[in-house]
């Protein structure tokens, strides 16, 4: 909110220069976000905190400065309103809901002369960013800026039946505001009305009907208090935020209406003449000051610094708080209704802290309990996984946790499989991601513009609807899980099996690193719609540990990639990270390395295409027995014409014993045994 330095100066005999004032306000009260020179004045843009509606005013800021500088404030001259005729003869005020309007003060003034405001008034409004309208409206705005109490002035002649009714709008009721905008209202919006029409949107904006014009002679001034919520919701609903609504929605003190009224009447008399005729003050439940007992020890306990009792009391008094009773180690404070942010001892400590100066509190290390920090096991493993993927040349990416309407359509996600946002930023971020893969594809696409080949991974949360069930975090209806995925993109489309085997190799190494030995790759994949859209129907496996599915690896469906304009091979794996971490075992034991040389033999075999390579490996392993230490597949060849429905597989078999050097005779016998065994299989043929 903008404040003029020159205006603030008027409340004091003397204050420091603007620079010093800016520093003082920033360090002791509110952040000054910007300072602008304007003629001989400086305009301070002060960020008033949400719990200080009393400071949406010059007097509020002046009081802060008064406390900080420890200087008396010069209060502005105000009209004495005691002894004025009470309402009843000339007009009537009726408040329908005292919860929504706890106080309504109105004054009838007669014989004012509407004209242009004097220069000093115009200048002051302009310095605070308000336009000058005429002397009456300007006086009301001036009083609002100064006291913080929004004021509204009606042309008394235009109020039908001289009845002021504060009520909820009717559904569909229309109003034209002072700036000629039309609004359609509903029951959640409060209006000020006469017997027939609404005259103003309460606390937000005045209406055209009872507008002040040059012809206006008699005026009705409104100084009311409205419940913050009804103003806040009304203002949001109408998308209409005004100087008045801003103050009301932060919750104003009902006792402020009279302060505002006294000042505005004085000002109107000054600039427009006229005389007060009658006053109405609807205030069924007056709010009174309250008391807080402050224990001096509490100050030191919270701040960690000793401040003298004398200093504490000086600060509290400087803030306008009354000392009711002082005891040896405590003091009883009376808080004015204006300061509804002060309810607890802690709130008073904050006041003492900021006025005293936070910078005077010196850093002091806490005394701590010397106990070891618990290691969060799952965090530890997650970090290990990150390092490990990095070692395997994957780069970590972060994506948004959202997917778009378009992604939903392309990947054919059903409505019930996604968590939708009530108020998305745009349709681009409409759903929470159910998997890391959709955004991963975008990552791949973007990066293929600059790189022909790359490997990326991501660890992040994924979300799915959970009906009435609660998640592990006790959040009902939504399941939130940590997922881990990696992707390889390559513009040079190689042999498909090679890519898959590479990915599988990485997956296996990765699982080994996590101490998971008993995983296997299952080609039976659950028939979930989005999986069919996403994956290549054949080049896909489910990763299992015993019977538990922990992830999926495979190739992205070429049709989908074409649809997305991605011209590259994309291999992806996604894992349930939480499950992985649960299963992972860190312990590993060393197995001794044989002192005896290994012997290598190659074997090449023709088998029908439908025979799984794993089956051949297992057969060799079984036939070769204990002396086989490893079997590596080093070539696959399946050219149609040459082999007619068969594939040629070449294996390297490594023999090694723990306790002797193997003789070539021994190996020859083993090989004979293996070859014989393999050839016993139907249509298997060892190539010699």
């Amino acid at each position: 909110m903008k404040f003029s330095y020159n205006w603030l100066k008027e409340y004091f005999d003397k204050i420091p220069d603007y620079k010093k004032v800016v520093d003082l306000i920033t360090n002791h009260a509110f952040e000054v976000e910007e300072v602008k020179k304007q003629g001989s004045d400086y305009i301070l843009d002060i960020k008033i905190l949400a719990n200080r509606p009393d400071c949406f005013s010059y007097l509020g800021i002046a009081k802060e400065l008064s406390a900080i500088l420890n200087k008396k404030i010069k209060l502005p001259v105000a009209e004495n309103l005691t002894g004025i005729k009470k309402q009843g003869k000339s007009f009537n005020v009726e408040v329908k809901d005292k919860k929504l309007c706890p106080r309504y003060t109105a004054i009838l003034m007669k014989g004012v002369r509407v004209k242009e405001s004097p220069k000093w008034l115009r200048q002051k409004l302009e310095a605070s960013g308000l336009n000058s309208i005429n002397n009456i409206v300007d006086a009301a705005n001036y009083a609002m800026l100064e006291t913080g109490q929004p004021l509204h002035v009606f042309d008394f002649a235009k109020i039908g039946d001289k009845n002021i009714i504060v009520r909820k709008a009717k559904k569909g009721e229309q109003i034209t505001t002072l700036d000629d905008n039309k609004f359609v209202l509903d029951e959640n919006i409060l209006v000020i009305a006469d017997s027939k029409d609404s005259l103003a949107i309460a606390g937000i904006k005045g209406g055209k009907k009872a507008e002040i014009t040059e012809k206006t002679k008699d005026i009705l001034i409104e100084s009311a208090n409205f419940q913050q919520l009804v103003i806040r919701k009304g203002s949001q609903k109408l998308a209409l935020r005004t100087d008045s609504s801003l103050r009301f929605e932060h919750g104003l003190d009902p006792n402020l209406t009279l302060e505002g009224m006294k000042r505005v009447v004085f000002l109107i008399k000054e600039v427009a003449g006229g005389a007060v005729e009658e006053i109405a003050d609807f205030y069924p439940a007056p709010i009174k000051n309250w008391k807080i007992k402050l224990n001096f020890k509490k100050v030191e306990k919270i701040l960690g610094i000793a401040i003298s009792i004398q200093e504490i009391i000086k600060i509290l008094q400087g803030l306008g708080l009354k000392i009711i009773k002082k005891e040896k180690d405590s003091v009883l404070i009376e808080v004015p209704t204006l300061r509804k942010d002060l309810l607890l001892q802690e709130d008073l400590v904050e006041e003492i802290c900021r006025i005293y100066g936070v910078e005077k509190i010196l850093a002091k290390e806490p005394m701590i309990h010397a106990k070891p920090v618990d290691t969060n096991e799952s965090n530890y493993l997650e970090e290990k996984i990150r390092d490990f993927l990095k070692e395997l040349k994957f780069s970590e990416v972060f994506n948004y946790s959202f997917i778009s309407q378009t992604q939903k359509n392309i990947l054919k996600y059903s409505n019930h499989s996604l968590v939708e946002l009530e108020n998305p930023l745009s349709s681009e971020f409409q759903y929470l991601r159910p998997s890391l893969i959709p955004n991963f594809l975008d990552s791949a696409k973007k990066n293929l513009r600059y790189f022909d080949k790359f490997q990326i991974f991501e660890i992040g949360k994924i979300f799915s609807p959970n009906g009435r069930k609660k998640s592990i975090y006790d959040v009902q209806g939504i399941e939130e899980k940590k997922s881990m995925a990696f992707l390889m993109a390559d513009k040079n489309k190689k042999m498909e099996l090679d890519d898959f085997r590479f990915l599988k190799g990485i997956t296996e190494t990765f699982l080994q690193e996590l101490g998971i030995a008993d995983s296997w790759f299952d080609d039976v994949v659950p028939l979930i719609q989005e999986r069919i859209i996403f994956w290549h129907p054949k080049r896909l496996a489910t990763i299992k540990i015993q019977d538990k599915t922990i992830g999926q690896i495979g190739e992205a469906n070429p049709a989908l990639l074409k649809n997305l304009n991605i011209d590259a091979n994309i291999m992806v794996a996604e894992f349930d990270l939480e499950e992985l971490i649960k299963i992972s075992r860190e312990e590993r034991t060393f197995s001794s390395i044989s002192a005896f040389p290994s012997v290598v033999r190659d074997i090449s075999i023709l088998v029908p295409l439908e025979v799984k390579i794993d089956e051949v490996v297992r057969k060799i392993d079984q036939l070769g027995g204990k002396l086989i230490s490893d079997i590596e597949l080093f070539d696959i060849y399946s050219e149609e014409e040459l082999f007619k429905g068969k594939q040629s597989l070449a294996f390297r078999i490594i023999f090694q014993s723990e306790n002797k050097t193997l003789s070539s005779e021994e190996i020859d016998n083993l090989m004979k045994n293996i070859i014989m065994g393999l050839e016993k299989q139907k249509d298997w043929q060892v190539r010699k």
Partner: protein
Amino acid sequence: MLSEKELEGISEQFKKEIEKIDSEKTLNEIFNRYLGKKGEITCFFGLIKDLPPKDKQKFGAKLNTLKKDFLEILEKESEKIKEKFNSEKLEKESFDVSAPGHKITKGHLHPVTLVRREVEQIFRGMGFESIEGPEVETEWYNFDSLNVPKDHPARDMWDTFWIKDNNGQKNLLRTHTSPVQVRYMEKHLPPIKIIVPGRAYRHEATDASHEFQFHQVEGLMIDENINVANLKAILLNFFRKFFKKDVEIRLRPSFFPFTEPSFEIDISCMVCEGKGCSACKKTGWVELGGAGIVHPNVLKASGLNPKLWQGFAFGMGMDRLVMMKYKINHIKWFNSSDLRFLKQF
């Protein structure tokens, strides 16, 4: 005639000549001259048969020793020449070390991950454990338990993404990492020392330093008497370790419903060292987060007795720390998955 004198003469002569060896060629010449088919030593062997029998054996033995010595010496010379030749050959080779090195592919971790680890490590050194929590939260944990009442304008401080109503549940994307404070205090008794790094979301316009999806790190320390002076010390220690500089911190009065008193955390600008520059809008200070003493209502909502326990909480923009650390000019890079950016870390 074969005589001892003559053998000595040859030996002398040989020793003189080998000093002239400077190449393989001269070496071969000398070898041939003495040990070749017509070499002098070879000739002497031919002369032995003409000697009287008593001398045959003597001269034979002498000649053999001589031959062996000569061979040994020549062998050594040959080694020397080879060595010299090899090193000369290497010297002559032309080689350009300025040729570019091969491009080695390696993996990279996200800068936010790197900075998070560093933050965790520093706080771990001060005894803080790193904790996580859910990103989809209930209204209770994100607001009510943190002393932000329903329909309170304070809620406007956090523009919230709401999840579409599901069976009457009003869930949201957490607007800060603070809910984890309550979740942790519900299950642990003080002394409590945790930090909570994580993602949070706000429904707001984005610019160079604001994203609607961002990273925060929350801190919470609760014991019997943890106070503002302690908060200052922990923050100061952290920033000085993190930036490896003697930065200053400034706490400024602020308002958060969940702390009382509340502060903004500023650190002295590292570009101008507090003198005032464009990076800090001429103030000399850069805002990094908020902090305060945990409000008694939050302790109560977490099941702790505010009469017994007291402590601080703080929250900082992790992205901000990353941007400052690596001098990154725009937050948009973080969620871009752009490898041109990520490969720099």
